[in-house]
């Protein structure tokens, strides 16, 4: 089992991002994803900066992957995407079929990210032919779903042709919209958002009127209110054939989370989950926000 750091989903200042990755280099992470996946208006780091940063932190024993945007609406966003794919040195994570199309055009291999709807073997077969090397399972799917699917992949003789990664820790990216909910909360139009999401390092809490933390607003993205945490399922995922568990960065503390996850392989211990802040339902085929 390997452990990855997913792309930072929030809008952090450039300095914070650079510090984070500087420290990530010496963390327990085997794979580091980086890049803007949520909003193209976030330009503390531009495409060329992400590429430069990726090259800077690249080490022989730590794979670096450039993640790309999920919801693309303009020609300018596609230009940026093209730039990220064209660099040719660093593996890319596709979060929209546009990235797959461009990667195919440029004959580049790719990771299928969690924002692409790949739910079954028929789809995996198509994407494999097109250059997929790794599949990140959609966040809403369960362990049972995965096990049946991987058995089908065994039978079809394709299981050894791709790696499987599962989103395992952090606020879950649940939805994308044209509307910016952070700007809306501040009564600003999106076109005059003043990049206000940079002021919310972990998004804005959206609570029910009973104080239950329902969702997190992160610009055009809506995230789970509770932090997904499969720390107690590391061995189960390994047994199911998962190759990589993804830790989504919440803060610099997430680097220690990677280590905690890794330790579960050699010296497993039970971590009690807090039902007012954490969840693990998706993996267990119940409501995502629940704890099994």
């Amino acid at each position: 089992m390997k452990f990855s750091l997913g792309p930072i989903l929030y809008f952090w200042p450039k300095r914070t991002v650079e510090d984070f990755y500087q420290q990530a280099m010496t963390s327990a992470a085997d794979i580091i994803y980086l890049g803007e996946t949520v909003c193209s208006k976030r330009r503390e780091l531009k495409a060329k900066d992400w590429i430069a940063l990726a090259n800077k932190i690249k080490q022989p024993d730590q794979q670096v992957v450039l993640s790309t945007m999920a919801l693309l609406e303009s020609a300018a966003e596609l230009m940026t995407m093209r730039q990220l794919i064209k660099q040719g040195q660093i593996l890319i994570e596709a979060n929209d079929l546009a990235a797959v199309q461009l990667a195919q055009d440029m004959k580049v291999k790719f990771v299928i990210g969690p924002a692409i709807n790949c739910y079954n073997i028929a789809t995996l077969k198509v994407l494999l032919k097109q250059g997929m090397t790794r599949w990140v399972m959609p966040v809403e799917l369960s362990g049972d779903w995965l096990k049946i699917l991987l058995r089908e992949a065994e039978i079809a003789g394709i299981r050894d042709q791709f790696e499987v990664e599962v989103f395992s820790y952090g606020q879950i990216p649940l939805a994308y919209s044209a509307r910016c909910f952070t700007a809306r909360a501040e009564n600003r139009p999106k076109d005059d958002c003043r990049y206000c999401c940079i002021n919310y390092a972990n998004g804005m809490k959206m609570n029910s009127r009973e104080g239950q933390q329902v969702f997190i607003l992160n610009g055009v993205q809506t995230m789970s209110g509770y932090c997904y945490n499969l720390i107690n399922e590391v061995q189960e995922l390994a047994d199911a054939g998962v190759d990589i568990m993804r830790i989504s960065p919440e803060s610099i503390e997430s680097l220690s989370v990677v280590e905690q996850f890794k330790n579960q392989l050699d010296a497993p211990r039970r971590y009690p989950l807090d039902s007012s802040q954490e969840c693990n339902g998706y993996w267990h085929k119940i409501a995502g926000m629940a704890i099994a």
Partner: protein
Amino acid sequence: MELLCPAGNLPALKSAIDHGADAVYIGMKDDTNARHFAGLNFNDKKLAQAADYVHQHGKKLHVAINTFAHPGQWQRWQDAVDNAVNVGVDALIISDIGVLQYASDNYPDIERHLSVQASSTNVESINYYHNNFDVARVVLPRVLSVQQVKQLARTSPVPLEVFAFGSLCIMAEGRCYLSSYMTGESPNTAGACSPAKYVRWQETDQGTESRLNGVLIDRYTKDENAGYPTLCKGRFEVEGNVYHALEEPTSLNTLELLPDLAKAGIVSFKIEGRQRSPAYVAQVAQTWRSAINFYQQNPDNFIVQDTWMSALAKLSEGSQTTLGAYHRKWQ
């Protein structure tokens, strides 16, 4: 320019055809479509009757097979495609790449329309589906502004269909897991958003409360009408303010954009609402038929008639309508 209307059963389908629809879209009676509701949709026999009725009137029938196939249960999606083709439907509305591959390999002559659930919002994504599965049409998610739709229509290798009226999804369709996060069931996997079996209304001292799987979605005072707890349309608290943090209970109505969209070359105007009654379908179809006819007769002097707007407002959630993401300021 096609008027494409929804139908959840035969009476609604007949109602749509009789009131001016050029085409009707329906789904099978299982989780292969994104409106998998109890008492709704078509079995094989009804599907054949639907095809007969539509074709007798010289109109078209589209079948939505737009959820994502479950592992170990592929047969159901394959059957849905096979059965639709066997009764002679005119188009398959598909979102799953695996199902698209199956349909294009086995039935290259049956039109494949890319479902809104595939979340294709840009020209390279459209190129992907065009190059690989030769889709004949792309249904755009409700996330683009009218300027972006126009731009895409200029560059797309494939004709485009847009949502014109009905319930407003505010997230990129097919990429929203809010429902499964709260209930375990999502449009992608179970074919339903905020499913009815998880809904509870409760009278309390503070007013009527609506809940989804126990989560308080909204609370209504005596003079407010309690609505269905669609989870993105409730009132929540953000930074101390209680408001519709994601969206108000409102419907999409694009009547005033009809000339813009028509001039951009949009080939089909889709009405949402396979879960709606035959009477609802009749009224929406009739109103949009009048508007489209009026536009075709007066392309340069199109004026939205008050009677159309009031007819549609009555059919809308909270009697409110919006241009949604088409209008940049909404975003």
